[in-house]
């Protein structure tokens, strides 16, 4: 193996940029690291090159541990997005620079640069200066320069990002040819999936610093393991179904469970993936012997012409109450949406105009690895902490997700006790939660929990809260909760008195922008636990007619969205003052959970609504779910 990364980690300040990335690249392969901007892909590449020092983990190049070596000693070739070829040197001088440093004789240098110029398709242009070359040609020079001294490993950081489409395609081909010919082990970083598929032998998908999945290109496209990769690569439809009698039930449709998929627990939710280009559309129902699985009848919502293909979005009545994960149904839609792709035709036989009805069929589908909500349960060493932990485990079990229990202690003596306590809790829940993980960390509670959440990519954090005494300051969001909401953007469930069930959820909306995220996460929890959701809107006393219209529309949309998630729901309207109304409604309705938007990062005094989150958390003993602001 030319390149082996083990648990590579990098932090910038409090931000975890690369999170224990481990990777092996087969000799002579071209490996593509694919990820969005800020996913940490370039940081990994720069650490391999030695331009950034990792905070943890090791880098092996050709069996040698280079983790602590400077870039000069690593024997790598690096190509930058902005070319970075030396302006005062000709193309040939640029290519020869590495050899000049290595004191190669002039004649040999000439020979090598001629050879490389030829290889990258720039024969005869060696005497030109960079400003006499086009962007594509400059990048070719950069590639030749990186290859001149025969590096063991070639690293390319979005090498074609600054070029236009045509030239990009040419350069891709050149790179692929050269890489095949020289068999140099290569890592290329890009955000462009088309580029990744065209070039890669293997692709690694990276998100928020973690390598989510690594695989051969086609495998990754057709049979991804995770929902994230299914969604990130290509267009996709992901529906949620339930396993029953070795079959998958999606609405009224029953599909056989594909072979090779581990038998799932009965009644467990599963995610079903099918690509838009595999969706069949026809105007008559599918016959039983066609081998096509009919999903039902759908109505075209929109058709988008996109050059070589047309994208058709349909809504499907028959799949009501089936949460479609991807594409996420537009907010306020009751029905499930499905995307299909058809090749464009100059004289189409079938027109896909809105409101037209089609039967939707499937030939292939793929079951994704099921993960429910990934939760972190923070358990303190107290009877209250125990109750919180139990409530968290109950939630995790109901949500069908994975959970990690963490306890933060301040001294090393307390480590053992805490571990024992968590072990006991794990024993108790072993039956219902076989995958419950436990972790004990030492340090300041706020910082350690923040780190744990960043490293583990949790979707929900459950925190216990001490019963507030009268003297306690009203601000409920301390140094633990605020960074979780603002820095990581993860919903925080604050539990003071655990409930025995999660049957009734109160989603609060009031003056100001109503939170769509609140509705979605509240609905998700309610759907997982089969509860009833109530959307409460508190009206301002001086509400204008325009504001009223908007609020009513929001309530309608919220109910539709909840319905599309399969949640029984109702709406209520209350009068100001918001805080009193919400609290009294919570008591009257005996709700098990209150969902509320997070306060603004630095709340201006006049925005009373945003301060509401704090007031509600301190004003009730019921569990409160605080949902971060999403932009």
């Amino acid at each position, binding site marked *: 193996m030319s390149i082996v990364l083990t648990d590579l980690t990098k932090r910038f300040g409090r931000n975890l940029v690369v999170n224990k990335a481990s990777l092996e690249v087969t000799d002579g392969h071209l490996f593509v690291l694919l990820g969005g901007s800020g996913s940490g892909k370039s940081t990994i590449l720069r650490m391999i*090159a*030695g*331009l950034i020092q990792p905070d943890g983990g090791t880098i092996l190049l050709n069996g040698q541990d280079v983790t602590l070596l*400077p*870039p*000069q000693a*690593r024997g*790598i*070739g*690096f190509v*930058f997005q*902005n070319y*970075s*070829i*030396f*302006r*005062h*040197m000709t193309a040939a001088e640029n290519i020869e*620079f*590495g050899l*000049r*440093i*290595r004191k190669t004789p002039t004649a040999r240098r000439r020979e090598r640069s001629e050879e490389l110029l030829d290889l990258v398709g720039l024969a005869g242009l060696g005497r030109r200066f960079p*400003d006499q070359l086009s962007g594509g040609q400059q990048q070719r020079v*950069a590639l030749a*320069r*990186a290859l001149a*001294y025969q590096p063991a490993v070639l690293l390319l950081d979005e090498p074609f990002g600054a070029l236009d489409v045509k030239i990009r395609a040419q350069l891709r081909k050149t790179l692929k040819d050269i890489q095949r010919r020289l068999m140099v082990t290569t890592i290329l970083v890009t955000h462009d999936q088309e580029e990744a598929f065209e070039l890669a032998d293997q692709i690694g998908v990276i998100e928020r610093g973690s390598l989510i999945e690594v695989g051969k290109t086609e495998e990754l496209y057709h049979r991804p393991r995770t929902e994230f990769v299914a969604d990130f690569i290509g267009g996709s439809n992901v529906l949620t179904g339930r396993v029953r009698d070795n079959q998958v039930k999606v609405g009224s449709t029953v599909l056989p469970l594909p072979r090779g998929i581990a038998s799932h627990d009965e009644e467990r939710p599963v995610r079903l993936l099918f690509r838009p280009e595999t969706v069949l559309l026809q105007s008559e129902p599918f016959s039983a012997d066609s081998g096509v699985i009919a999903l039902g009848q759908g109505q075209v919502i929109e058709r988008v012409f996109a050059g070589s293909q047309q994208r058709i979005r349909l809504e499907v009545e028959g799949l009501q109450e089936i949460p479609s994960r991807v594409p996420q149904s537009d907010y306020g839609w009751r029905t499930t949406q499905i995307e299909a792709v058809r090749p464009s035709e100059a004289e189409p036989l079938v027109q896909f105009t809105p409101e037209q009805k089609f039967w939707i069929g499937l030939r292939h589908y793929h079951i994704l690895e099921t993960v429910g909500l990934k939760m972190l349960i923070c358990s303190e060493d107290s009877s209250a902490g125990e109750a919180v932990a139990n409530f968290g485990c109950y939630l995790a079990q109901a949500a069908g997700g994975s959970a990690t229990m963490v306890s933060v202690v301040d001294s090393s003596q307390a480590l053992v006790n805490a571990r024992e306590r968590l072990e006991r809790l794990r024993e108790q829940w072993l039956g219902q939660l076989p995958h419950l993980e436990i972790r004990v960390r030492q340090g300041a509670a706020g910082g350690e929990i923040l780190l744990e959440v960043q490293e583990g990519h949790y979707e929900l954090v459950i925190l216990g809260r001490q019963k507030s005494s009268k003297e306690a300051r009203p601000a409920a969001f301390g140094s633990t909760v605020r960074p979780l909401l603002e820095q990581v953007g993860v919903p925080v469930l604050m539990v003071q008195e655990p409930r025995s069930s999660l049957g009734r959820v109160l989603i609060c909306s009031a003056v100001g922008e109503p939170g769509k995220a609140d509705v979605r996460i509240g609905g998700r929890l309610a759907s997982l636990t089969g509860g009833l959701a109530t959307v409460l809107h508190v009206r301002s006393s001086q509400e204008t007619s325009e504001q009223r219209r908007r609020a009513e529309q929001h309530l309608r949309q919220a109910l539709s969205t909840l319905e599309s998630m399969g949640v029984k729901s109702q709406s209520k309207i209350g009068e100001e003052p918001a805080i009193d109304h919400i609290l009294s409604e919570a008591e009257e309705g005996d709700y098990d959970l209150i969902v509320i938007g997070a306060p603004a990062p630095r709340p201006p005094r006049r925005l009373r609504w945003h301060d509401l989150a704090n007031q509600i958390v301190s004003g009730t003993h019921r569990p409160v779910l605080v949902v971060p602001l999403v932009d």
Partner: protein
Amino acid sequence: MKTRRRRTSRKTTGLLPISFLLLVLLPLLLMPLGAIYIFAARGGLGHFIRTFSQSDAQFALRFSLLIAFATSLVNGVLGTFAAYVLAKYRFPGREALSVVVNLPVAIPTVVVGTSLLLLWGPLGLLGQFLDPMGVQPMFAPFGVFLAHLFVTFPYMLGAVKPVLDELEATYEEAAYTIGASRWQAFRFVILPTLRGGLFSGTLLTFAHSLGEFGATVMVSGNLRLRTQTAPLYIFAQFEAGNIETANAVAAVLATLSFALFFVLLRFTQRRSQRVA
């Protein structure tokens, strides 16, 4: 080529604004400059020869050139270093430091002279300890040198730093990944891109040092044959009523400055042409 074509294609209307500009500039800039040469020429060639056969005139010019040369050399290196550090590294107080290094442009040169006296003079903050040891930086050639370093410091920085700022961070990193050491990267990759900035920065420093008056008059003590620079000599002669002598040296100084300036102009023009 390109610039020439552009120039000819530009329309030659606008006669009025052009002539108005010339009319304003004539008494403001052109006539005073002309006056130097006219007065200098009045005494005839003989007067020039007589002036420059005097040892203090010779010394003043020589001393000025020497100081200017030394100043450009030291500030050339120091300014480049400062620009490199300020452009490359991010550290607390960087903003403040870049203000401080540019400060000499804003401070009146006479004030610079005063502050140097207050530091290095016989009664100054540091000078009071040096004085008993017989070390006196002020009222000596070294004091003049110090003043010129102070006054001209920002010019090199101003010429080099923009080039470095524009240079992508990956430029140096590219050199590292290829195998160049820090020094090799600086010597073969960074320094050559700075050529233009170094040249114009040095020239500017030299020209300013050659004409420096305010700070020099304070710290030099205006000692004949010891610390008297050409501008000081001109001033002294003028005050003594030897207008022709003053004018002769002034004409030489002006000619030197013109020459430097034209070299600089030609150079920057050539560079901008190449970029286009």
